[in-house]
């Protein structure tokens, strides 16, 4: 099994789900999708009296954003530079409430966010996605914060992070190693 910690507001996560689903399919293993609230992705604005630390973080954020758009373009995706979903808490909560296979919900929610530029901070939209994804959920379940705390205690700091046999892999670049683990299993 692959455990996948994801956040819908993260373009890096969106770019990871297709290859991870393909990897799981290749080896006939399930994906246990888990919510993880990642750090905000808004691009910092350059200010006049910027410190070295601020400049570093700004240049890093700009570079990461540019490269994500580059690889999205390589896949043929047209990604909006100003996504409507800024707060993914409601969607992550819904993910945690779904019983059974969550893959179809994950795919449709990401597509709504990144290809259709819909705002996932909308209960009605999430209900609609659950219907089309045939995802049953329990709206009384409220363990999102606990999942986040447990994940951070296990060493997570960002999404997407994948776990196979207790080994953590931050990002889809590790798929060759993950494939090897699945081959050995």
């Amino acid at each position: 099994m692959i455990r996948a910690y994801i956040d819908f507001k993260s373009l890096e996560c969106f770019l990871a789900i297709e290859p991870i689903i393909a990897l799981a399919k290749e080896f006939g293993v399930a994906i246990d999708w888990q919510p993880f609230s990642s750090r905000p992705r808004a691009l910092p604005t350059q200010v006049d009296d910027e410190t070295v630390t601020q400049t570093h973080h700004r240049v890093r954020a700009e570079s990461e954003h540019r490269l994500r758009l580059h690889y999205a373009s390589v896949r043929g995706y047209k990604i909006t530079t100003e996504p409507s979903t800024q707060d993914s808490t409601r969607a992550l909560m819904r993910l945690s409430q779904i019983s059974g296979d969550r893959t179809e919900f994950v795919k449709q929610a990401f597509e709504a966010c990144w290809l259709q530029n819909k705002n996932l901070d909308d209960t009605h939209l999430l209900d609609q996605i659950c219907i089309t994804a045939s995802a049953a959920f329990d709206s009384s379940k409220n363990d999102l914060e606990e999942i986040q705390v447990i994940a951070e205690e296990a060493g997570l700091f960002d999404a997407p992070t994948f776990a196979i046999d207790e080994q953590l892999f931050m990002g889809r670049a590790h798929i060759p190693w993950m494939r090897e683990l699945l081959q050995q299993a």
Partner: protein
Amino acid sequence: MDVLKSNSPVIIYLDVKSPYAFISVQPTLALEQDLGLSFDWRPYTLDIPSYLGSARKEGGAVVESSGRSPKIWNAIRYAYMDARRYAERQGYVLKGTEKIWDSSLANMGILFTNLYFRERIPAYLEAVYPPFWRRELDIEDIEVVKQCLDWAGVDSTEFESFATGEGKVMHDQILETRFDAGMYGVPTYVVGEDVFFGREHLPYIRWMLSGKQGPAPDIANELLTGGAR
């Protein structure tokens, strides 16, 4: 020196004290050899405290820490664990460092070798990176860096004057202009107008330099096995 311009098809920026730069060396050398090209190897000395805070360890335990949140500590622990497992696949040992080193001299050794003894680059990188990450090298000692150069077959006679003159000017110029060039870490690869951070872009760079045959590859950390070194 224009940090984004070179006669080579690829510029790679490295820092000896970066674990991710360490594990990028062999895949990058492999790409260079596979393509029959000569890359432009340059130093970029990281200012780690400015973006990751600082810490000092003694006997494996942190005795001083400044500006590091629990999430930053998770990220740092993960980075070392991740780099260590890939290093081990390459047949290397990677131990966590006890302090944040001033790697500028060892990095100027990369520049010196690249400029005047280009064919010795693989040997110099092998002379400095693995022993530093086994905690066997004091890279702040110029005599140690000269020994690494000599071990790699580089005549180190002129290195000291290089490190206080031309080499230091070039080294510092890279640092002064790095942000304007869109660089913030290592390894950074410059291919034409494109700047890529991280070895996970090597499959794409290989595709670019091979005539862009077939579909463009996604990012991936290539698996290398080096056996016992």
